């Protein structure tokens, strides 16, 4: 199934794996990211182990619709729950969020605790001071990127050079950053989760060299059922560069 209608929007959704068995929903990162970062890494191996995996493009990203507003992590958490409704999935699901997707996953666990069996956070700061600084940094970086894309007409220049792939990435990024309320929504906080209110089991996976490593201790301190795994030698790129280690860690945590 590639298209799902939820909250009045068309979402690109892929499902891999059996119809029964534990269900895990992947949540990708911001702007340049989409479900393909899971499609080519964790989804197929997890599906082969009997996990029903669900991948979706966040609103404004990948092949999902790009409405002009509604880009807070809470909005995306409601999108996720509505997609589960549309798929007819009523049993609790596991969530795995990478980078910004980790924040959306944690917001989902708070929005509807009964539908979330557990959360895997990969390289995300979901609360506390590390999270505040991270959001501030993201908003600043995206604001600068938005201005650059708007004034340089980057995608037109790339298209003229025959660089279709990069031109499309730049064009989509520009439409998301300059044509929607995404930056304003992210800057309008507070968006982070009250970690002390999270009741489900959480697995946190971080790169030892990441600027977000401080978020690991925060998770462990505030969440009663929390397991941590730190990947040595890596920063924010755990999903892509330590796929095998991440997969083994998730399988062990899921006990499948």
């Amino acid at each position, binding site marked *: 199934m*590639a298209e799902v209608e939820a909250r009045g929007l068309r979402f690109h959704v*892929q499902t*891999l794996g059996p119809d029964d068995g534990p269900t895990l929903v992947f949540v990708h990162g911001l702007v340049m990211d*989409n*479900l*393909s*970062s899971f*499609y*080519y*890494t964790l*989804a*197929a*191996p997890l*599906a*082969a182990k009997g996990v029903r995996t669900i991948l979706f*493009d966040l609103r404004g990203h*990948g*092949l999902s619709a790009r409405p002009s507003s509604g880009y807070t992590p809470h909005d995306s958490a409601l999108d996720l729950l509505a997609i589960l409704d549309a798929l007819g999935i009523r049993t609790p699901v596991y969530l795995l969020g990478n980078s910004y997707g980790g924040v959306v996953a944690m917001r989902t666990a708070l929005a509807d605790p009964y539908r979330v069996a557990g959360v895997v956070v990969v390289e995300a700061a979901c609360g506390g001071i590390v999270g505040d600084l991270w959001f501030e940094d993201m908003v600043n970086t995206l604001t600068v990127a938005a201005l650059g894309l708007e004034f340089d007409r980057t995608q037109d220049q790339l298209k003229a050079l*025959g*660089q*279709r*792939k*990069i*031109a*499309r*990435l730049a064009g989509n990024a520009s439409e998301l950053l300059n044509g929607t309320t995404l930056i304003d929504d992210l800057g309008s906080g507070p968006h982070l989760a009250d970690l002390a209110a999270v009741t489900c089991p959480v697995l946190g996976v971080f790169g030892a060299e990441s600027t977000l490593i401080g978020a690991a201790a925060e998770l462990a301190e505030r969440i009663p059922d929390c397991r941590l795994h730190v990947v040595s030698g890596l920063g924010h790129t755990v999903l*892509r560069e330590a*796929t095998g280690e991440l997969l083994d860690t998730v399988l062990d945590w899921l006990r499948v």
Partner: protein
Amino acid sequence: MSDVLTRLAQIISEVVGPDFLLDVEITRETTFSDDLGLESIEFVALADKLRAHYDVDLVGFLADMDIDEIMAMSVGRLADHIEMAAARG
């Protein structure tokens, strides 16, 4: 050109869109990333269309490759896989 390659070229055209493909002739040697400029999310859409058309699931085939290998793949290699998988039924 084999039937599969011809049909595959048509499906690729649907995914890539007509504006870019005017100058590109799709052959066995054409690569998805460098020659067609396909985004990784578009390859997901392509895999979807191939599953619908041939009832061939690419997930197992792709699971053994990382994203760079997948995008560097030639159209001919994908066509060979589809032909083999279709022959196996």
